[in-house]
């Protein structure tokens, strides 16, 4: 079996386990390439029936408009229900406080909104597109990752996962984060997108954009980031990951289609999350966020 078939079989087996073992699963959908791949796998898992669970988007309010328009288009195309948890609402209600200063981002605020939405809508399993190759704390993550009443990840009390046997038994109030594409790499995701001819937001391809240089990273100019107007300049760039606009840096690129993007990634000497400011805050930024409920 070749790599992509192997990974597809594994992911669909996991998705079917989620539907078999949980009462109220949901797919965490950011509109990024990984969640688009996951949505497509979910559809394949249940054909010719429809996807038997809804999507949940945690909206930071700092989105790339291209991502949101494709999200709404895909919701129609795949005939799924979409829930949106709004970080802006959490801020308005005073549940979280907007960060201040040059590096302000809503990335970590997402966690509160996510946990509240899970509790409110009583989801017991949340599937996400996180991969183990992204980051060293994620390399330790399970496929079924149990979170306690507070949404916390306890890295020392993880359930061992043996063979393909997935244990999703939980107490009421707990929930499980599920990562069907755990074993995929960035390149696998791109090759799968090409193989399955999936549509992804246009910002993944090279385009002219106003950016400014911050600590060696090309940040997109937007209303969400403070910078000196004279620092802005136009550059041909693309994004390797799509997160909150305030924490996602662009990379210089001329790649206009999937073939050239894949060539670029093959030849790249920088890691995918090397352009994510949210990971750069400290050496264990991801681990610390995961412990309080980030996915």
């Amino acid at each position, binding site marked *: *079996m*070749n*790599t992509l078939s*192997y*990974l597809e*079989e594994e992911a*669909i*087996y996991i998705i*079917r*386990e989620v*539907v*078999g073992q949980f009462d109220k699963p949901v797919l965490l959908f950011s509109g990024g390439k990984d969640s688009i791949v996951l949505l497509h796998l979910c559809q*394949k*898992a*249940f*054909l*010719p*029936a*429809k996807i038997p669970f809804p999507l949940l988007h945690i909206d930071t309010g700092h989105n790339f408009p291209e991502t949101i328009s494709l999200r709404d288009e895909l919701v129609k195309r795949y005939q799924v229900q979409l829930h949106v948890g709004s970080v802006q609402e959490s801020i308005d209600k005073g549940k979280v406080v907007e960060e201040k200063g040059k590096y302000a981002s809503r990335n970590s605020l997402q966690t509160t909104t996510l946990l509240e939405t899970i509790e409110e809508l009583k989801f017991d399993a949340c599937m996400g597109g996180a991969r*183990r*190759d992204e*980051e*060293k*704390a*994620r*390399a*330790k993550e399970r496929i079924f990752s149990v979170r306690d009443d507070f949404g916390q990840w306890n*890295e*020392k009390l*993880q*359930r*061992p*996962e*043996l*063979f*393909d*046997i997935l*244990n999703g*038994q*939980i*107490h009421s109030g707990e929930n499980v984060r599920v990562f069907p594409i*755990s*074993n995929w*790499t960035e*390149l696998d995701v791109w090759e799968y997108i090409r193989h399955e001819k999936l549509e992804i937001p246009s910002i993944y391809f090279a385009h002219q954009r106003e950016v400014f240089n911050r600590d060696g990273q090309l940040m997109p100019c937007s209303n969400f980031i403070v910078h000196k107007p004279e620092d802005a300049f136009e550059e041909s760039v693309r994004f390797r990951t799509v997160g909150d606009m305030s924490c996602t840096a662009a990379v210089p690129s001329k790649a206009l289609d999937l073939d050239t993007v894949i060539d670029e990634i093959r030849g*790249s*000497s*920088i*890691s995918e999350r*090397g352009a994510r400011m949210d990971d750069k805050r400290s*050496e*264990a930024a991801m*681990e610390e966020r995961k412990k309080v409920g980030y996915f």
Partner: protein
Amino acid sequence: MEILRITTAGSVDDGKSTLIGRLLYETQSLKIDQVETIEAKSKSLGYDYIDFSLATDGLLTEREQGITIDVSHLYFSTPKRRFIVADAPGHVEYTRNMVTGASNVEVAIILLDARKGVMAQTKRHLYITQLLGIKHLIFTINKMDLIDYDQEQFDSIVEAIKALVNQYDWEPQLSFIPVSALKGDNVIVKSNNMPWYEGNDLLSLIESLTLTEDNALDGFLQVQHVIRPKTEEFHDYRGFAGKVKSGVFSQGDEIEIFPSGQKSIVNSIEKYGTAKNKVVAGENATLLLEDEIDASRGNAIVKTNHNLKIDKKVKTKICWMQSTDLNPNSKYWLQQGVHKSLVKINQIESKMDWEAWKSVPTDCLTMNDIGAVDLQLAQPLMFAPYSDNKSLGAFILIDTQTNNTSGVGFIL
């Protein structure tokens, strides 16, 4: 391109993380920003070399203590093959992690320190790989640079390992490589320091190992989910979706449902909505049957000519994985694939005494023990001995109080 899954085992300080770090680095799987982070961290810790273990030890506590606690998953590829590495820590107390790491792999790389040779840990690693029936074992004798690349010492370690393997009724494919993970000898390229060594370097070896698939086993599919679209177009559609755990299914096959015993014929096979003539072990499939038959999640669809066993009593080997002991008076959930049944413990016969290196009678298993246990199930189980059929002979035990995965079992 094929995927090869590997687990690694070694004692503390055998240089395992260094070896893996080097494989990642030399195959360009570690990127510049990651290497820079590791370099800076190595420097701040006062090392005069790049400590690649910092790349694989993902948790804060691991980096602080300089040890690997939990199984870590790492990925690298070459133009010839894709590799998934389950890096399991080698400490005495972490047997359960090695069993976990070894449960999903075709190959185990076992590290030894050339200065120390076979240690108690090596014996335990061998016991575990044997228990899990791993077919390819690669022994990397590390730190050859510290014994002046001495062939005699290497040869005597090889002989000692072969003698250990011969104790078992088990014939894995064995390879032995003298390496220095730190200096890079025989890791990615053949070393000039050991002209006496005629074999492959580690990377060439794992690139070229041949994998065999056994499709001759009994056709067996466990139902994960019944697909019923309930739309006009697919009004009577009733597809039994699940993974083919072993063997092959083709259109027209005579099948029976376990446990109901109802018989039918495979009318058609679909995979993700597309018709197929045949599906093999490891593939997800949707089977549509000729008769209207009731089967639900956890039930098995099995070819009528099978040789599988059905029983409520099973003899097993169990590796215990949680801090509270295996309690002979408790009930547990047994999960075999996606099928679950309540079990009680009939008898704990014996366990492996790692010090005396023999099986000793016991009435209790504590964490990291591996012992012989007789189980009594609430419902009959369809199974095969693990040594004949890994998919149908393995199970986990789930604690009914905590819901934790408390042990893994292998049916004898």
